[in-house]
């Protein structure tokens, strides 16, 4: 009798562990082991077949810091971040301000702006690549009609990176806008009523009431967009593949090329570790900055 109560008790204690077991097991095998593995493989010269691995110690990391393509890809990634994040946020803040109210036309605009979320990077890439194509593209043709000459949007060392940044903004500004609208709708109405009594204009209200009230959401957006910028790969892969002359080769594009096209898994792992360090550093710096601002 006592045994069976003990058993029953034990079984009951096991229940939560059984509930989380599938997820924890999968996370262990497919997230945690690979993360630790990244540190391991970064110390070897190793190929996809896993044969003939040689221990290099920190050799891969030494190579990373003298590799001009690494520095180039880091430069491209920074450029992307500095251009994409402010543009994206400016558009999202303006549009969210204009579309906060739940009117019928606002709802339609929001639905349209959010739509590109369903387009894969592949479809987005194909679409814009052909619209901007130097021969068959409609936009290129219109620019020609306007007297700009034949612009080669997709193959120009100076502008192609910005063209891809544009595609990225096109695909994601609706998401940022929607997130901000959600936050702006939660600003208590009493704040605006007080402002109305004080005869404070709509524009002023937006800067002095709306924006400060949605600051946590803004910080969240800045952080996710910056971290996202350091992970850019898809849209580059489906449009330029990093060209022309590596001017659009981001850090992750370069990791992919090293690992899977040049088949140097160890070196690519070392690059991944550097990426991880950068992302964690940015998160830490921005997070402390956010906390400091909030306590001020």
């Amino acid at each position, binding site marked *: 009798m006592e045994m069976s109560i003990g058993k029953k008790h034990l079984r009951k204690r096991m229940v939560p562990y059984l509930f989380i077991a599938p997820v924890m097991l999968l996370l262990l095998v497919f997230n945690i082991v690979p993360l630790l*593995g990244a540190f391991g493989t970064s110390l070897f010269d190793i190929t996809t077949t896993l044969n003939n691995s040689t221990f290099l110690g920190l050799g891969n990391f030494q190579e990373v810091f003298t590799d001009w393509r690494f520095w180039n890809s880091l430069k491209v990634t920074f450029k992307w971040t500095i251009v994409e994040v402010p543009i994206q946020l400016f558009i999202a803040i303006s549009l969210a301000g204009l579309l906060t109210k739940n009117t019928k036309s606002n709802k339609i605009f929001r639905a349209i702006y959010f739509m590109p979320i369903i387009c894969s990077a592949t479809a987005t890439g194909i679409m814009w690549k052909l619209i901007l194509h130097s021969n068959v593209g409609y936009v290129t043709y219109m620019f020609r009609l306007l007297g700009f000459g034949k612009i080669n949007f997709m193959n120009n060392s100076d502008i192609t990176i910005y063209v891809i940044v544009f595609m990225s903004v096109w695909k994601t500004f609706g998401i940022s806008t929607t997130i901000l609208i959600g936050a702006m709708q939660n600003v208590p109405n009493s704040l605006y009523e007080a402002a109305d009594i004080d005869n404070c204009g709509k524009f002023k209200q937006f800067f002095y009431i709306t924006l400060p009230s949605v600051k946590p959401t803004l910080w969240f957006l800045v952080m996710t967009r910056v971290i996202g910028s350091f992970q850019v790969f898809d849209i580059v892969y489906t449009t330029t593949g990093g060209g022309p002359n590596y001017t659009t080769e981001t850090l992750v594009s370069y990791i992919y090329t090293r690992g899977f096209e040049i088949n140097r898994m160890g070196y690519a792992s070392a690059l991944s570790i550097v990426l991880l360090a950068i992302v964690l550093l940015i998160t830490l710096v921005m997070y402390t900055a956010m906390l400091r601002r909030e306590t001020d």
Partner: protein
Amino acid sequence: MSIRMKRRVAGIPIFLLLLIIALIVLLPVLWMMISSFKPAKEIISFPPTLFFKEFSLENYLRLSKRLKIFSYVQNSLIYATLTTLPSVFICSLAGYAFARFQFKGRNFLFITVLATMMIPFQVIMIPLFLVVKTMGMYDSYAGLILPKLAVAISIFMMRSAFVALPKELDEAGRIDGVTEFGLYWKIMLPQVVPTMITMMILGVNAAWNDLMWPLLVTGTTKMRTLANGLALFIGSDTSEYGPAFAGALISIMPMLVLYIIGQRYFVEGAVTSGLKG
């Protein structure tokens, strides 16, 4: 002019601006849809046309000859559904346990789950590829699907949904003497159906559009999904404009339909999880 009229007039430039942005979003997609029905010679003609002069299915026929398009679509469907359904199930199990049970190590384990959210997929993709390959799952459905099942953000969302449920619910169930799994399955899970639908829609969309993992883990044409098969196709042969249009349209259409039906869930997901683009 009355104040009201003035407000109306002042609103016109804003409305025009919103309209122009809407056109920048919509027109490229429309142009691509229309162009996919142009005959090949019209696509490469100069000047480019806005609307097709002649309706043709040539591009779609060419696409099906050049690529195993049906197999790609089938693989994308398998990848999207067999990733999403089990994922929502096991993540809801874990979310439920983290929300409604007290157990040793709960906080530590939950923080571990959240920590994996901080690690970008791009950081672990190389060793993950090696792990999957060593397990003999390279170029297989198992290799495609298994690593994508445990999603930290889903666990987090499910936990939030279950935390919000009133405590009386499990007390009532416990008095009736249902098992712990029965309590979860019959009483709790039906309460969080909207969250589950949101997760399913976001999951299907993410898997259908996923480029990177299928690109890494599949090696033969018969295992390719639509997003990565098409990407490889345009990468290798950029002169096939017509079939590229057709393929891109095929890849967009199912998700567009899903968006039109379930827009509210897409928005819900964006707001609660702040999903990445």
